[in-house]
């Protein structure tokens, strides 16, 4: 019986992230629109977009291979499973033990690898430009992510997100210099990984500075829908991860009752809302960077996270 309940909770979490992800994107867009003094589309617009795209046939380039057709589902599945490993409303879910933070970073890496390959599959120059820039940014963001994981793990004594959240929740951590460095670095990594301003502009097309949109240029119909859903899930994943590590307030324990789950869920939705508003505000207040200034920006995250790890190795009190 207990197994069935924990299985149900696990699936509830997976469905929750899937259901909330487009809404999060919608809220961010709404916030940005309001800042630009536009009314903006409804926060539910991403759902409509997805439904519309799902209903459309795929127009496939003549020379597209099977890899191109498998990629959208792979990207979606990897991102979804990674998102399911992040505690949202409760820690210690049934399958949270199947992967730790490094595995989450690895799954996102798999998704990106497939994405970049799919971009190169048709053999158009837009795909190439997107893929080459994506791997360049990832070559800085991914190690930064790993180093952030290392500093968090050195403090919490675990790379397992559930354990980290419990540890942070217990309040023995206090304020740490290295955690502050990790937070700054993780924010930069999250911006870079999600192709947000100032790294990439999610609203642009046909601009030579674009990265992510250039890679998915050849996609259409249901394939594009899967990719868009994957993008929304990834944004949700990063906000959930930041919330889980740095603000684990309200997270329910592993075997808590339904009440704790509800509180955790409410807290989670509130955290997402805060994250969405913060992201929208930040994106409105800053300009997109030139591509070759990005290495400095993302490299700063790498350096800060390295500094954090170094401080922890030198002195456990930092």
């Amino acid at each position, binding site marked *: 019986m207990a197994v069935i309940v924990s299985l149900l909770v696990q699936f509830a979490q997976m469905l929750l992230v899937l259901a909330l992800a487009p809404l999060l994107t919608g809220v961010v867009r709404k916030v940005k629109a309001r800042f630009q003094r536009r009314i903006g589309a409804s926060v539910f617009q991403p759902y409509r977009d997805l439904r519309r795209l799902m209903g459309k046939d795929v*127009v496939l*380039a003549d020379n597209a291979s099977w890899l191109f057709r498998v990629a959208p589902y792979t990207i979606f599945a990897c991102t979804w499973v990674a998102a399911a490993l992040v505690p949202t409303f409760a820690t210690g879910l049934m399958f949270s033990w199947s*992967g730790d933070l490094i595995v989450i970073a690895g799954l996102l890496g798999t998704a990106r*690898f497939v994405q970049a390959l799919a971009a190169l599959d048709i053999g158009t120059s837009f795909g190439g430009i997107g893929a080459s820039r994506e791997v360049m940014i990832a070559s800085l963001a*991914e190690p930064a992510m790993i180093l952030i994981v290392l500093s968090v793990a050195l403090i919490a004594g675990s790379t397992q997100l559930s354990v980290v959240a419990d540890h942070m929740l217990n309040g023995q951590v206090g304020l740490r210099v290295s955690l502050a460095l990790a937070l700054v670095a993780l924010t930069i990594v999250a911006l870079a990984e999600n192709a947000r301003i100032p790294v990439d502009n999610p609203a642009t097309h046909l601009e030579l500075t674009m990265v992510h949109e250039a890679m998915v240029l050849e996609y259409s119909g249901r394939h594009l829908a899967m990719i868009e859903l994957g993008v929304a899930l990834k944004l949700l994943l990063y906000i959930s991860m930041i919330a889980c590590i740095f603000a684990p307030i309200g997270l329910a324990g592993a075997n808590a009752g339904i009440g704790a789950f509800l509180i955790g869920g409410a807290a989670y939705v509130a955290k997402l809302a805060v994250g969405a508003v913060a992201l929208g505000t930040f994106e409105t207040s800053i300009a997109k960077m030139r591509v070759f200034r990005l290495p400095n920006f993302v490299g700063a995250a790498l350096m800060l996270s390295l500094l954090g790890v170094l401080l922890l190795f030198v002195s456990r009190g930092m």
Partner: protein
Amino acid sequence: MIEIALSCIGLFCLLAVAGAGLGRASAGRFIVYGGCLLIGAILFGTGLLAIAEPAQRIALPLGVPWVGVHLRLDALSSFFLLLLGLGSAGASLFAIGYCAHDEEPQRVLPFYPLFLAGMTLVLLADDAFSFLFAWELMSLSSWALVMAQHRESGNAQAAFVYLLMAVFSGLTMLLAFGVLAGPTGGYAFDAMRAAHPSAGLTALIFALALAGAGSKAGLVPLHVWLPLAHPAAPSHVSALMSGVMTKIAVYGFIRVVFDLLGGAPWWAATIVLAVGGITAIMGVLHALMERDLKRLLAYSTVENIGIVFVGLGLALAFKANNFPAGAALALTAALFHALNHTLFKSLLFFGAGAVLHATGTRDIEKLGGLLQRMPLTSAAVLVGCFAISALPPMNGFASEWLTFQAILLRPELPQWGLKLSIPADGALLALAAALAAACFVRAFGIGFLGRPRTAAAGNAHEADRWSVAAMAGFAGLCLLTGLFPGVTIDLLAPVAHALVGAAMPWQTGDAWLTTIPVAASRSSYNALLLFVFVLGSGGIAAALVKRFGSSGLRRSPAWDCGFPDPSPMTQYTGASMGQPIKRVYGALAFHARDVVDMPAPGDTRAATHTVTRTDYIWDGVYVPLGQAVTWVSTYLNVLQFLTIRRYLGFVFILLILLLMALALWQ
């Protein structure tokens, strides 16, 4: 068990004789490679069965008087025997098909079994003489294999550099054993284990072993032969050299430092960590800039050797600080990565060989669109690319994940050097992993995806059945070792126990086959579950979308923002794909410079874009070294034209000097 391994060496030698005799006969290929395949399988089985057994010894009345030939099969050599068997069986299977069109099989057939015999003997040797004999046998036979296609330009030079590095490696190993044996001359490994050299001698032995084994394995700055020799050798030999021989070198390092020396002081660990980290990052950066598929793979081998040495350095650091559990984790991670590298690098070299055979070129800028023309080869290579890029759920991720767990294990080491170098290595390792992913996106994306850039690539055909079988088998093994990392970890338990006195917790008994390196509350990883999850959720999503959404599909020309380019030459090239990365890291790593010469309007000159790169190590170390040797030999040339009396005088003076040295020594 050891008798089986010994008879395998004998069989290899017989096959070498058969290869020399059969020469050009078409049956030679089946006999030699088929035989090597069988013997490889036997060696694999022997290693698998012997790994948990106590060490077995055998002494043969051969070789140097009073010393004889001592052979020993313990857990460490069993593991490497397993790895050797696997790699050689795969390469032989591949070769049966691949060498069907070989024009001069007599240049490969005799040396191939000899090479395998040499490597097997290195693993079994239990005294310095047989070890060095086997080491040199391995070097020389592989040199002959590198020379197999000696008429192609550059191959002879590659073989020469390889020979020089092999001589260097043999010399340093010889000196290391000489110092280990001490003045009493205990050349049996047992005597060396029992001896406890002083701190200064330990340092010397460590440095010599690192240089000797490192030059064979490809540690920076001794890696120069790999990108030269690997492309020169036939592909199945490259697979063996890269996948197996570099591991034999790793074995040599472990045998000397972990076993014979019994560990090293902490500062030695910092050196290994630093060299390993730099090797990993330099290797992958060079790989990212290469357009020759096999050179790219050779540089990627350098990277992976770096990762293995980072693991070994961590193990040394923990061992020096009396933390056997940590040393066991780090050592297991290093050996696991060595095994993984054998699997995926052999696979990738097979793929490169198949592509070379099908298109006649190794240049990725002349390939493209192979996924449709060589579907099976490409699919296998894709699996290899996933594995080498350390992506879950493949095996490369499992071993790098373990290495990260080892890094996290104990930050409170007392030595400052370790406190600083371990996190720095964590950063380098993470950077290398991300760059490796970029490198293989580039290699696969430019070489196998897109549209064919040349007619040769457009007319490519699928490889033969033997080759495809070898590639598919290794791809399957990459996936299996990735999905069940616990099996390999448990396999390595006796090795870790023998070398560092502890082993990782037993894995295969855990629920759901979860891998738990230390404790469940610290970290856990279940590749199988994740794989099933990803497959399941992807499959269900696809099914649902097709059921409730659309399922139609229409082919049309590529969109490309409305301007599809008619010529395949307008695709992104490998150089343009690597350009952003070159711009970020290139200035520092190899002083990369882009010079654009844009003529003024009206000028009819063609615009040019020149990229210059400097290989600091080649230009800074090897070129001056070569110049110095030339300079010295020019001056010593005088010695060639002396009278007999003077030569005798030299011999006499030397004799007197040696006698005086002996008198002073005593």
